[in-house]
């Protein structure tokens, strides 16, 4: 059955009135205390650098500035954030002595308003000594790689190997071994609303009171409390009524909770901080990038008998809680939807000079399925089989199913879902479209993906990263509670409190629908409160908005609470109606005995009885004003001694296929048709399920074709705006055909399973498989790296026509940083020019925007300069050292510049050649690297800007040198760089 929104059960969402009318309240809308200070954060422009000194005296002197706080001050009132695996590194929320990624907080300014706070940032001078950046995860494991954390001997945070079944024998017995190596990039689902924190500290006993758009899991609460050195009871953490999307990302606000709370304590004033978009893209949180080598032992018919995973997980600069969860969340699902009994795993966690990673929609799934499903396609290609047959022959066919690594797949019918998808999704038609397109010379391909989408995480899965011996020492961890409270007020109206911290999904609507159904009320009669308050609510470490837990888990708690409440109210009603509780019917806002609807009592009278007339209650009954249910699935046990782990409770199934066409002119990938089949158990709200699928699909198209948190080889962050981190808009998101079958989960009270993350897992690899299929007739099997940008695809299209004879590149191509060269003819002698270059007073006049040049030693110059292009200008301190001096012929200049907009360094070689007419040809070549803000937001223009700034210098040099001879002649001609 095709899923049709016109006939589906689409109900209005309670949330939408406020959201669509703009009256919904988000963190930045909340009132804050009188005297609140506004924070701005100075962030590291370097990927890796020692902090030699911080001079904030000018910032402190700025009117309106209340405090300037650095890592040393922070360390006096807090402790490092706890690390999930037992390694001794120190994870501070602000750099202490050393900065390890671009964007790492270095100093916090607290001021009367954010404008003044940002003015003050410009006045702080941090003296850094750059250290070698470690960017590539494989290179980070090299013996000679610079070590990020001095407490460790290398950059390896954790290494574990696992063996299930007998993979080696299976490999020996198999006729073929087929392998892929893939690199999954860094990306994020970029919520519309950025992070925000309101923090207060009461030194007189109540401790910290924090409001933040944190999303959970609340296992982070004890991490925050410990970092702030208070018991959990003195850390009140509340969430605002609305949060503008999260997708996992707002878990990552927690280091800023610690940071701002500590600042509030130090300043003895409330503090407000709202993250801006540049901060968010640069330094909030990212999904992990991962290098995977995956090998399969394969039978001739495509049956896989064993898998060998070798994964290198790049968590960025710190192993920040809850990492390495991205790697272990899928540990029970490493064979995906396939019946494979033998499994070998090697997991390595590596630290590099990049932003620390954390939760992100799909959490670990995209990385796993990108490797596994690329491998399944490769198996079909190498064995010359139909990829459909390879999937079908390996699909799990009976349930419940125990995976090799110890997870139970609760329910499913993968083969039926697969067959229904092919039929209702008209796969045959897609094959014909491909045939027709290829016959017309177009580049068209089809991709397939099968995936299992886990939901309701076992809070104990992370301990799989520890050895059984370490686990025995620290005690077992497991489970995934959900909590819900239903309250009855004195007029009998119903309020439900849930623990799921929604960020726009519509949890209130579904919870209201469920409770009103149980109690015979209308949805609108039930108020659902989703603001979270650790001081008042029932909650556990598993609370929060992650692992698609709401429909399966939180709603099970709501169901449990509603059923219990109904049972107790039925006893009250039975007493008043002279019947048995089991015969009581709740309907239409009234209560009556089955078969006698005429003699009814209003629901409100029964529900308010405990407030007004406890004497009317049955004798053995406590007053019924509130029912809290904690739902705890017993299946989620701790890891076994053999490292078996039931990592999640529920397992949805997805089968996707798509057709893509590659534009022969632009190389752009256009998704022609995309079909996604879901079995997410019982569908509780068809419109929201559809919304979840479409939302995940849209973000997955971003991951497939557009988005990457890109870093330069020097660790410069290059994607600081939505121009350089291109999230797809409605124009780039293809249409989607959604299909469903339902096999309810036997393990949840609702029968529902998670649905919100699936397409983030399945779609990137499905699109990649289709692109690989499109390229296959011309290129055979190809290795693809996401995102599949047109420039990357173009490499696979026609070979480039040769350059015309006599072609000379405008810039030397060293492949490192920005490069350029230029030449100028000047009517002055080499010696005259040389003398200018060696004279600080002359240089002050030549260097564009120089505010004075000093010469600290014979071969060094320092200057304070205003550099820029057009309106983009910034003030920098520059230091230039001269070496390889060969007067008056050549010199090597090594320079460094640093300012509020960022920093750069580079080398330039200058040579002076005397011309027959007595003039001089100045020739120069340079290579430069730029980092900090300008690199993050202006990547597209940096090359040109470097050329202009360097060109300006030589223009001025030529003008000054030539000017001494003849003021009026046209003195020099540019030859290089397109001039």
């Amino acid at each position, binding site marked *: 059955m095709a899923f049709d929104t016109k006939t589906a059960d689409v109900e209005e969402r309670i949330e939408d009135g406020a959201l669509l009318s703009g009256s919904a309240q988000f963190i930045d809308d909340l009132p804050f205390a009188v005297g609140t200070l506004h924070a701005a954060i100075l962030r590291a422009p370097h990927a890796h650098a020692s902090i030699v000194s911080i001079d904030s005296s000018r910032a402190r002197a700025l009117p309106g500035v209340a405090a300037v706080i650095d890592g040393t001050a922070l360390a006096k009132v807090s402790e490092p954030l706890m690390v999930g695996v037992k390694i001794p590194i120190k994870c501070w929320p602000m750099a202490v002595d050393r900065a390890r990624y671009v964007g790492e907080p270095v100093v916090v300014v607290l001021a009367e308003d954010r404008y003044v706070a940002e003015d003050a940032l410009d006045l702080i001078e941090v003296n850094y000594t750059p250290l070698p950046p470690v960017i590539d995860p494989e290179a980070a494991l090299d013996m000679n790689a610079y070590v990020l954390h001095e407490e460790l001997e290398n950059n390896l945070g954790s290494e574990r190997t696992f063996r299930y079944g007998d993979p080696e024998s299976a490999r020996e017995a198999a006729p073929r071994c087929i392998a892929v190596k893939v690199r999954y990039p860094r990306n994020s689902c970029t919520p519309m609303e950025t992070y925000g924190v309101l923090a207060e500290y009461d030194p007189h006993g109540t401790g910290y009171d924090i409001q933040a758009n944190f999303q959970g899991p609340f296992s982070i609460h004890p991490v925050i409390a410990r970092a702030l050195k208070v018991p959990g009871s003195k850390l009140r953490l509340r969430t605002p009524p609305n949060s503008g999307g999260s997708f996992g990302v707002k878990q990552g606000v927690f280091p800023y909770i610690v940071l701002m709370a500590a600042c509030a304590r130090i300043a003895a004033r409330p503090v407000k901080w709202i993250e801006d978009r540049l901060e968010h893209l640069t330094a909030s949180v990212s999904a992990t990038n991962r290098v995977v080598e995956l090998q399969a032992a394969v039978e001739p018919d495509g049956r896989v008998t064993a898998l060998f995973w070798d994964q290198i997980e790049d968590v960025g600069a710190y192993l920040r809680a809850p990492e390495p969860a991205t790697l272990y969340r899928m540990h029970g699902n490493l064979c995906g939807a396939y019946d494979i009994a033998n499994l070998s795993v090697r997991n390595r966690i590596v630290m590099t000079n990049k932003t620390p990673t954390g939760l992100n929609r799909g959490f670990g799934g995209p990385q796993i399925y990108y490797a596994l499903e690329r491998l399944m396609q490769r198996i079909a290609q190498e064995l010359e089989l139909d990829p459909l047959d390879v999937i079908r022959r390996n699909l799990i066919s009976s349930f419940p199913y125990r995976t090799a690594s110890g997870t139970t797949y609760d329910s499913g019918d993968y083969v039926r879902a697969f067959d229904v998808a092919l039929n209702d999704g008209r796969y045959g038609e897609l094959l014909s479209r491909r045939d027709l397109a290829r016959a017309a010379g177009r580049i068209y391909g089809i991709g397939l993906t099968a995936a299992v989408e886990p939901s309701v995480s076992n809070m104990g899965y992370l301990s799989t990263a520890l050895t059984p011996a370490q686990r025995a020492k620290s005690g077992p961890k497991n489970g995934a509670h959900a909590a819900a409270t239903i309250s009855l007020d004195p007029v009998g109206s119903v309020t439900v409190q849930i623990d799921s911290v929604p960020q726009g999904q519509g949890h209130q609507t579904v919870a209201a629908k469920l409770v009103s159904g149980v109690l015979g009320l209308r949805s609108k009669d039930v108020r659902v409160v989703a603001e979270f308050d650790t001081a008042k609510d029932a909650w556990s470490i598993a609370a929060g908005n992650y692992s698609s837990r709401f429909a399966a888990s939180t709603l099970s708690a709501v169901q449990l609470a509603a059923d219990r409440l109904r049972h107790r109210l039925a006893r009250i009603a039975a007493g008043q109606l002279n019947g048995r509780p089991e015969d009581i019917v709740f309907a239409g806002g009234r209560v009556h005995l089955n078969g006698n609807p005429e003699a009814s009592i209003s629901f409100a009278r029964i529900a308010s009885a405990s407030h007004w007339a406890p004497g009317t209650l049955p004798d053995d009954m406590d007053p019924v004003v509130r029912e809290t249910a904690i739902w705890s699935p017993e299946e989620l046990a701790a890891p076994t001694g053999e490292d078996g782990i039931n990592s999640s409770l529920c397992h949805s199934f997805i089968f996707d296929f798509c057709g893509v066409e590659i534009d022969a002119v632009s190389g752009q990938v256009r998704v022609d048709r995309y079909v996604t089949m879901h079995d997410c158990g019982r569908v509780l709200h068809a419109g929201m399920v559809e919304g979840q699928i479409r939302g995940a699909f849209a973000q997955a198209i971003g991951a497939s074709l557009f988005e990457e948190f890109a870093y330069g080889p020097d660790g410069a962050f290059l994607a600081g705006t939505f121009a350089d981190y291109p999230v797809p808009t409605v124009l780039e998101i293809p249409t989607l055909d959604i299909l469903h079958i339902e096999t309810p989960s036997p393990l949840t009270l609702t029968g529902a399973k998670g649905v919100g993350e699936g397409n983030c897992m399945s779609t990137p690899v499905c699109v990649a498989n289709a692109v690989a299929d499109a390229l296959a007739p011309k290129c055979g099997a190809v290795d693809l790296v996401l995102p599949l940008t047109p420039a990357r695809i173009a490499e696979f299209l026609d070979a480039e026509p040769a350059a015309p004879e006599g072609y000379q590149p405008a810039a030397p191509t060293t492949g490192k940083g920005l490069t350029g060269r230029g030449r100028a003819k000047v009517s002055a002698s080499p010696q005259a020019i040389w003398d200018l270059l060696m004279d600080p007073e002359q240089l002050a006049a030549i260097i564009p925007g120089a505010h004075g040049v000093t010469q600290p030693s014979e071969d060094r110059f320092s200057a304070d300069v205003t550099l820029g292009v057009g309106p983009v200008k910034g003030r920098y301190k520059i230091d230039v050292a001269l070496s390889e001096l060969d007067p008056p012929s050549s010199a090597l200049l090594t320079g460094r510049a640093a300012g509020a907009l960022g920093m750069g360094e580079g080398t330039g070689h200058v040579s002076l050649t005397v011309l027959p007419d007595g003039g001089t040809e100045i020739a120069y070549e340079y290579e430069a690297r730029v980092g900090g803000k*300008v690199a993050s*937001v202006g990547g597209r223009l940096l090359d040109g800007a470097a050329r202009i700034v360097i060109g300006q210098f030589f223009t001025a040099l030529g003008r000054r040198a030539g000017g001494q001879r003849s003021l009026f002649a046209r003195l020099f001609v540019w030859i290089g760089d397109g001039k």
Partner: protein
Amino acid sequence: MKPAPFDYLRAGTVQEAQAALAAEGEGARVIAGGQSLVAMLNMRLARPTLLVDVMHVAGGAEIRVERGQLVVPFAVRQAALLNRRDLLSEVPLLAAALPWVGHVQTRARGTVCGSVAHADPSAEIALALVALDGRVHLRGRGARRLPAAEFFTGMMQTAARPDEMIEAVSFPLSQEGTGHAFNEVGIRHGDFAIVSVAAIATGDRLRLAIGGVNDTPLVRDWSSLDERQVDDALNDLAWSLDARNDLHATARYRRDLVRRLGRKTIKEARQCAA
């Protein structure tokens, strides 16, 4: 992401705006639609001491036809020009290029002259202005008109002096028998062009203008170019540009686009001319 302090003047007349620019010197900047400048202010990439707002000057938004030119004054929003009823017949290249300028939302605020003043290497309006031999009308203490090719001196750099503002830009009206075409490839629709191509065909004569590769729009003319010569001509052109690698595209990809998109655009322009 809050701007550094600056002064703000809402100018009532061009004379007032110009006098303020002259008095302030290098630190002054005209603000019109603000679609580039405000982002630069917020990121503190630009730190003008004075912003002169010209959007409230009377008459600044009235497009006129004057001596064979479509004259677009300083306060005309991109959307207003795109929505002009006769634009397709008056300046067909603009009608083809303007939908590529940002998005509906940014065109509703951004101005035509503001885009020219900003001089982004990927800007479609700048490319069209250069391709059509349009002019930039500058108002300083006096008035002068510069050919577009002389106005754009580098990336985000123009020949305008600090005391000058753009009073208008003018585009020659289209002549009978001339064909125009415009194509562009960006990451998403509305993004900065990786490569944009404008082609103008008149009889045997052909002009191609390339944006997004060099620091300023590049124009190449051929007195005749038959079908067999097109590929070689485009390959020579592609290699003669200063194509570079950046985050989104390689130099090679930019050359690919000059060749492939160039061919497509030439074909479309010639079809229009026929």
